[in-house]
């Protein structure tokens, strides 16, 4: 918005400075509020259990130890197995990559059809898909569990990929549709006159245009799928669980001594990929968030 700094008289300048100070104080306090949990997670993960019991929550670690990280990665118990997060982290990776790519590709094609190759009923189909984005997934959990069983995919990673693709299509279609709908219809007409067909136009003209929305969609889908817990906990079994489920199992396992430092290290490990994406491509991340909520 525009500069609201009016030319001020001398007398009001002090008030202005005081207001600015208050503003920065508030902003700083809020920054602390948002950073505090991350800070606590990191410091706790670097402390020994002994230091955690005796020290303060927000104190820096006296003796930095990576023991908790090692345990979290390869030794912590998720129920009866004690292999740490590592296998589950890789489960999440090999689950997220194909699910993200497939749902993005399908979304791109769907968005291309709905925005540029309208046919009677296309808008109805789009509306149906859009409503699908908003259902609470609890309403499909039971039949999906049976369906995966029928397909022989129950408790498998391909089964989870399938679920994420199915319920991701709504959003990816929405993203691409809203992006392509701003491209003038004349572009397709020109290409048709030039002799190009449906796929040629998509491949040569629309896909090269789509880099920003592909990034937004990939980030959105990756964050959604990586952070998913509901599908993971409902449709996986021991050995195929994604990292969020394993993290929850580590934290809530009731056997043995409560190792808070390991919990925190595990939580950070589970959060690292999405945090990394956020730090590297924050603007695209925000665009996905706002595009996912403010349609049109």
């Amino acid at each position, binding site marked *: 918005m525009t500069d609201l700094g009016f030319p001020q008289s001398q007398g009001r300048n002090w008030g202005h400075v005081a207001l600015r100070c208050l503003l920065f104080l508030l902003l700083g306090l809020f920054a602390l509020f948002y950073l505090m949990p991350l800070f606590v997670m990191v410091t706790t993960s670097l402390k020994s259990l002994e230091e955690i019991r005796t020290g303060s929550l927000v104190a820096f670690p006296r003796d930095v130890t990576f023991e908790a990280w090692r345990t979290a990665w390869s030794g912590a118990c998720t129920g009866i197995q004690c292999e740490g997060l590592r296998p589950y982290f890789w489960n999440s990776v090999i689950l997220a990559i194909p699910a993200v790519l497939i749902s993005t590709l399908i979304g791109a094609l769907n968005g291309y059809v709905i925005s540029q190759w309208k046919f009677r009923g296309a808008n109805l189909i789009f509306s149906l898909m859009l409503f699908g984005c908003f259902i609470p997934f609890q309403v499909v959990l039971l039949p999906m569990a049976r369906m995966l069983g029928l397909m022989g995919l129950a408790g498998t990673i391909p089964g989870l990929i399938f679920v994420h693709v199915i319920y991701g299509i709504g959003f990816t279609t929405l993203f691409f549709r809203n992006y392509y709908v701003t491209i003038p219809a004349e572009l397709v007409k020109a290409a048709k006159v030039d002799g190009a067909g449906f796929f040629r136009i998509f491949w040569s003209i629309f896909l090269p245009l789509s880099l920003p929305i592909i990034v937004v969609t990939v980030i959105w889908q990756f964050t959604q799928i990586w952070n998913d817990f509901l599908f993971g906990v409902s449709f996986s079994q021991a050995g195929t669980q994604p990292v*969020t489920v394993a993290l*929850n199992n580590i934290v809530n396992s009731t056997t043995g001594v409560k190792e808070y430092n390991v919990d925190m290290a595990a939580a950070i490990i589970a959060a690292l990929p999405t945090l990394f994406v956020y730090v590297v491509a924050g603007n695209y991340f925000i665009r996905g968030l706002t595009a996912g*909520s*403010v349609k049109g």
Partner: protein
Amino acid sequence: MIEWFERQIPKIVLAPSFMAVLVFVYGFIAWTAWISFTRSKLLPNYEIKGVIQYERLFAAPRWDTAMSNLFVFGTLFIVISMLLGLLLAILLDQKIRTEGALRTIYLYPMALSMIVTGTAWKWIMNPGLGIENMVRGWGFESFSFDWVIDPDMAIYAVVIAGVWQASGFVMALFLAGLRSVDEEIIKAAQIDGIPHWRIYSAIIIPSMAPIFLSAFIVLAHLAIKSFDLVIALTGGGPGYATDLPATYMYAMAFSRGDIGQAASSAMVMMGVVFAIVVPYLYSELRAKHD
């Protein structure tokens, strides 16, 4: 023939997604709805038996707790996130040089899994070693902060973690809204000598009504679906104190083996979501067709 086929390509491309949505969204909703009218227990039983599951549901004290928790959690989560988000957006809108960094800080929780958020806050609010211990260490020996294990207060602990996670997102929405207000209107107001705060309260904020609506829809949607956060933070406990419809449904479906109850609770959840979302989507889609 080939030309006919060429003309059908768009439909052929969209068809699999359309079928998937029909089956996996609408078909599955229908299946769940059907089951919710049966006496299914561990296995589905397709014989319609009327509204018995809904009678059981509304008679169950645990469901009662879950619904009132949803109401308390939903209201507080939405109201606080909106207010905090709006405040942050306005503060950040004052030509702050460090805006980019601050925005990044306020928004990063949205990139985290709710399981991670729950884990972190569970530790922070740990009565023995968390904030309580910290404040006592500063000399306030009688300080007490044990919300996560207090059945009456635990739901508020969930609210804190939820607000921490989602308010930055609301801020981003509002900030985008503030920036999209027509600059000429603001200039005109400045020339008219309208005070700074009045420009916000009388011009900018009212013009953001659609963004308030969007934020409300997204937050309400998050609140109703929130499942991960409760599981990680309190596990629904102490007892059933922080049960939400989502955790109730999950428990019935996967640990209690009572899929009739699971189905009927899922249908009620969907009813709540649709009561909020359908009018919104309807107006959105209609506005677009005009």
